[in-house]
């Protein structure tokens, strides 16, 4: 902490010094313990090195959908190994208990039939039959009855089921004598393919497919129950797969329909992954549109950890609809449209809200959205007529007011005497004084809020305009390549600077939310010093970027921008670093009750 403060003391010198090329070294000398990756500017082009974690960063890992599926698979195999059941069954059991393996094992050991029935794996058997279930042999016998049966009747395509080892044929017998009529579409054509789960409620494959598709696509549901009324059996994945993905040798269907079914199957798998991710506190799905990555961040899984860390994570993908990592040159060329998918692991804010913790960030956003401030404005800018209580805004003129509604005369200053307004001498009378007191109080509170809000909104606005700045900068970079001898890679410093400015504006934005809630004191003053230094640096760099380019000045400009970028980056790191250590040392005190923190000491305000 002390070293941070020293730096802010020295900043002014760096600013007056135009040749601040030695700034980096100077800073390094003062606190070289957290400067590992600051040695050369060239390094900054790389994605921030993962080897050393800073105190404001959190360990996290990006997982693709396939990687999450592998995690699911290993859980399923674990359960298969313990219970000796099929993978489909294990998957249904795990989903039933929200992937809580310990609870599943406990419950299953206690009463396997009950768990199997409530998970929709088996139908409830009459009590007489369920008696000998505890012997190990019954587990294996159950295994065969539970396997998915694809009952091929007329077409005989039941052999399609890859894993069903000749299921008991009792379901086939009654229907052999009678032609099959699907109880849903009432079709009785000979080429119908009746299918049923273990409950033996038969429906034609067309109805099954239509039903499953509507559940998956329209209702985003991964639990496909048997269609029969009040039947609780759930279709295992392999059954759904058979409905949607035609096996080899199946009759060739309509290609459009097949593509649709394949998309439905993909959606089904995505829904399973989403359910798994939602059930696991260590995982969170990337909130960016059409991104299917997942982030694993065990460090922020518990609510209590959110008091000390701000778990900003990135899923590794960039841009909209982008999948996977881009190469370095792609990243540089992607512009702001190819922004990293950064989001907060701990709350629903879909952006980086460092340095402020989730609870405070949420409170601030709520305050900004609430119209409580409208009420505050009304309080500060209007008064009520003492007679009819109409709300009046004074927008000019003298202090003698006449209420438009009730024609009451009163004085705007003391709210009391009527027609004798010009002799407003009862200035300190009790009731008038009270009214003024409460009014000035609410005005002060509104002014305080607006001070922070305006600065917050300003940075947000600037961040929005950064798209424009980006386009302008790109244009400038092209010009530079034409007018000077600089190569493409040599003009990238501009882009780097814009990126840095954008990043710092996000930090700055949230520092105002934080400052609004920070309790008065030395800690807050230090915080605001850091904030001021960062803001000044960012504004300087912004100005440099906006300045016109003259060919003869390009080398100096490049030098200046490069230096400033490094400086700004450094200041941003200090800001984030200091706030983060502040949270882990619980140094910050709030002026309001914040979830999870100690209640504020009552101050005079």
């Amino acid at each position, binding site marked *: 902490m002390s070293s941070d403060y020293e730096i802010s003391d020295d900043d002014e010198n760096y600013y007056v010094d135009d040749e601040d090329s030695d700034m980096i070294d100077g800073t390094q000398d003062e606190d070289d313990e957290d400067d590992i990756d600051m040695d050369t500017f060239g390094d900054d082009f790389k994605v921030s090195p993962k080897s050393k974690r800073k105190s404001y960063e959190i360990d996290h890992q990006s997982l693709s959908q396939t990687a999450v599926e592998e995690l699911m698979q290993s859980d399923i195999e674990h359960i298969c190994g313990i219970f000796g059941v099929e993978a489909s069954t294990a998957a249904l059991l795990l989903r039933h208990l929200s992937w809580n393996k310990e609870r599943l094992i406990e419950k299953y050991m206690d009463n396997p039939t009950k768990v199997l029935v409530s998970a929709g794996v088996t139908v409830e058997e009459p009590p007489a039959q369920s008696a000998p279930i505890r012997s190990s042999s019954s587990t294996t016998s159950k295994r065969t009855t539970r396997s998915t049966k694809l009952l091929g009747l007329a077409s005989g395509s039941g052999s399609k089921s890859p894993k069903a080892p000749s299921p008991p044929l009792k379901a086939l017998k009654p229907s052999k004598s009678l032609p099959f009529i699907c*109880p*849903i*579409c*009432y*079709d009785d054509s000979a080429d119908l393919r009746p299918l049923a789960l273990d409950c033996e409620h038969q*429906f034609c494959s*067309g*109805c099954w497919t*239509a*039903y499953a598709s*509507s559940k998956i696509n*329209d209702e985003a549901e991964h639990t496909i*129950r048997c*269609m*029969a*009324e*009040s039947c609780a059996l759930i279709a295992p994945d392999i059954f759904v797969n058979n409905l949607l993905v035609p096996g080899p040798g199946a009759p060739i269907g309509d290609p459009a329909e097949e593509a649709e079914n394949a998309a439905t199957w993909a959606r089904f798998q995505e829904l399973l992954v989403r359910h798994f991710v939602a059930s696991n506190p260590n995982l969170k799905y990337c909130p960016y549109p059409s991104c299917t990555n997942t982030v694993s961040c065990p460090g922020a899984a518990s609510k209590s950890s959110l008091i000390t860390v701000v778990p900003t994570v990135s899923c590794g993908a960039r841009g909209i609809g982008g999948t996977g990592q881009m190469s370095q040159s792609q990243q540089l060329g992607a512009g702001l449209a190819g922004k990293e998918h950064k989001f907060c692991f701990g709350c629903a804010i879909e952006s980086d809200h460092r340095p402020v913790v989730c609870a405070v960030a949420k409170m601030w956003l709520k305050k900004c959205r609430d119209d409580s401030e409208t009420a505050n404005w009304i309080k500060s800018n209007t008064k009520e007529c003492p007679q009819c209580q109409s709300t009046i805004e004074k927008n000019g003129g003298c202090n003698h007011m006449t209420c438009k509604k009730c024609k009451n005369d009163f004085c705007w200053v003391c709210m009391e005497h009527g027609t004798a307004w010009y002799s407003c001498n009862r200035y300190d009378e009790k009731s008038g004084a009270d009214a003024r007191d409460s009014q000035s109080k609410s005005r002060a509170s509104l002014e305080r809020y607006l001070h922070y809000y305006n600065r917050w909104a300003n940075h947000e606005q600037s961040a929005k305009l950064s798209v424009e700045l980006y386009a302008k900068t790109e244009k400038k970079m092209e010009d530079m390549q034409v007018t000077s001898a600089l190569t493409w890679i040599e003009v990238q410093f501009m882009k780097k600077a814009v990126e840095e400015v954008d990043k710092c504006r996000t930090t700055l934005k949230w520092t105002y939310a934080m400052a609004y809630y920070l309790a008065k004191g030395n800690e807050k003053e230090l915080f605001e010093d850091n904030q001021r230094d960062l803001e000044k640096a960012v504004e300087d760099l912004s100005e440099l970027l906006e300045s016109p380019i003259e060919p003869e000045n390009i080398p100096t400009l490049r030098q200046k921008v490069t230096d400033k970028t490094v400086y700004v980056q450094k200041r941003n790191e200090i800001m984030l670093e200091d706030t983060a250590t502040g949270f882990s040392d619980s140094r910050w005190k709030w002026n309001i009750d914040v979830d999870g923190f100690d209640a504020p000491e009552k101050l005079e305000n």
Partner: protein
Amino acid sequence: MSTNCKRRLIRDFKRLSTDPPGGISGSPCPDNIMLWNAVIFGPADTPFEDGTFKLLLTFDDSYPNKPPTVKFLSRMFHPNVYANGELCLDILQNRWSPTYDVAAILTSIQSLLHDPNPNSPANAEAAQLYRENMKEYVRRVKATVEESWLDPEDNIEEDEVAEAEGDGEAEMGQRMDETPNAH
């Protein structure tokens, strides 16, 4: 899919006319099989007894994978029926199963009349009276029973007129005046 839907509806109609469950009747419009008119007779031993409540069922091609839209045409006073006649019934929303047919839907609604669920009220007043003032609840329901005896044609027309003109109250007054004639 649409042929499936129509075949199924014809089958539903056949079943409803050959083996009708007690207290309900229904049939598709002569010119549109996707639009059904139905009548539910108020179940005995309930305040709804003797009422003849008209409903309109609107099917689309997704039937039977999706439930139809069901709406009361007769004015209802029931905790789970909205003022516009739409109703709040689990099997018509999230608990729908493609095996339900028109007969099953109508029977469920009939039993809903008998056994309302005041905990998810669509008509707050009715739910409150049902819980706290049974006598007044019965009185209000009986009023709708008498209204339901009006000629269905008139009733539908009036409802449609009322809806079209957005002038339900005037219509309602007129209907109340006519009620004695219906006796």
